[in-house]
């Protein structure tokens, strides 16, 4: 696993241990360095990751490298944020609005909805 500031990049082998076997709310950004929308989102996602770091982990998967993960999660493009809880996908946002509020809503909304529902 490589460390990139607040968002850790996970490779195929680390995905299982970090995301599927991880505890608590987890957000994964499926991205590619060659994706212009990912580039715009990057500093905002860093900010959002800083805000939620006490209660949520944020990871990054480079789909240009991790093709198998991209296929497994049936991604149709980038950036796609997928939220996991106890190894289950609980929410997904394709191309979140590149504002702090838009990203915060994308990465915390599914977990908040689950809390309210329970």
């Amino acid at each position: 696993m490589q460390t990139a500031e607040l968002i850790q990049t996970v490779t195929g082998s680390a995905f299982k241990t970090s995301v599927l076997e991880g505890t608590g709310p987890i957000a994964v950004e499926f991205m590619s360095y060659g994706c212009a929308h990912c580039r715009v989102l990057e500093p905002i996602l860093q900010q959002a990751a800083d805000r939620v770091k006490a209660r949520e982990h944020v990871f990054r998967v480079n789909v240009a490298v991790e093709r198998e993960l991209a296929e497994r999660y049936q991604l149709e493009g980038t950036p796609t944020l997928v939220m996991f809880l106890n190894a289950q996908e609980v929410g997904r946002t394709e191309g979140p609005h590149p504002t702090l509020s838009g990203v915060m809503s994308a990465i915390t909304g599914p977990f908040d909805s689950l809390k309210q529902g329970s």
Partner: protein
Amino acid sequence: MQTIPAPILLFNGECAVCRSIAHWVGVSAQGVPVGARIDERPIGDDPAALRSLNPDLDIWAAYETIHLLMPDGSMKVGGEAVAEVLRSLPNCRWFAWTFDLKLLGFRPFQLLLDAGYFVLADVRPLLGCESCGIPSPPVKFIRSLIDRLLQARPGKTRAPHFTASNRAVKPTA
């Protein structure tokens, strides 16, 4: 930091326009001695590998703007990188000297080149590259007109901040 024997031109390997330009540079540089020849390399997907070439090199910045890594450890970006590449090519040297020409403290031909690079960078999405940058509103408008004319985008409407990419999620062979 790796020692670089010759300048390295980093290009977006996902972009057909960038690949064509890099290919043209390679072909034009034929006959140039190896040490003086620019080495074209796709940016790739490994931030650490890029930092090993130059610690100040950021992969996001490399995809956003053309970068030329110099053997002395410096970097040239944008129009300055293009000027340096043209200076190195035998078929462009005859006019590339003009980029150094100063008039009243300005370099008018370099300014023109900077403007040309800026325009090309903006219209690349029109030429088929979505990964180089998000087009400005006029370019977006023109592209939407072209898409409508060609009916190139049937199906569901995409989120506006999303690259529905056949490269980003290309199925494995």
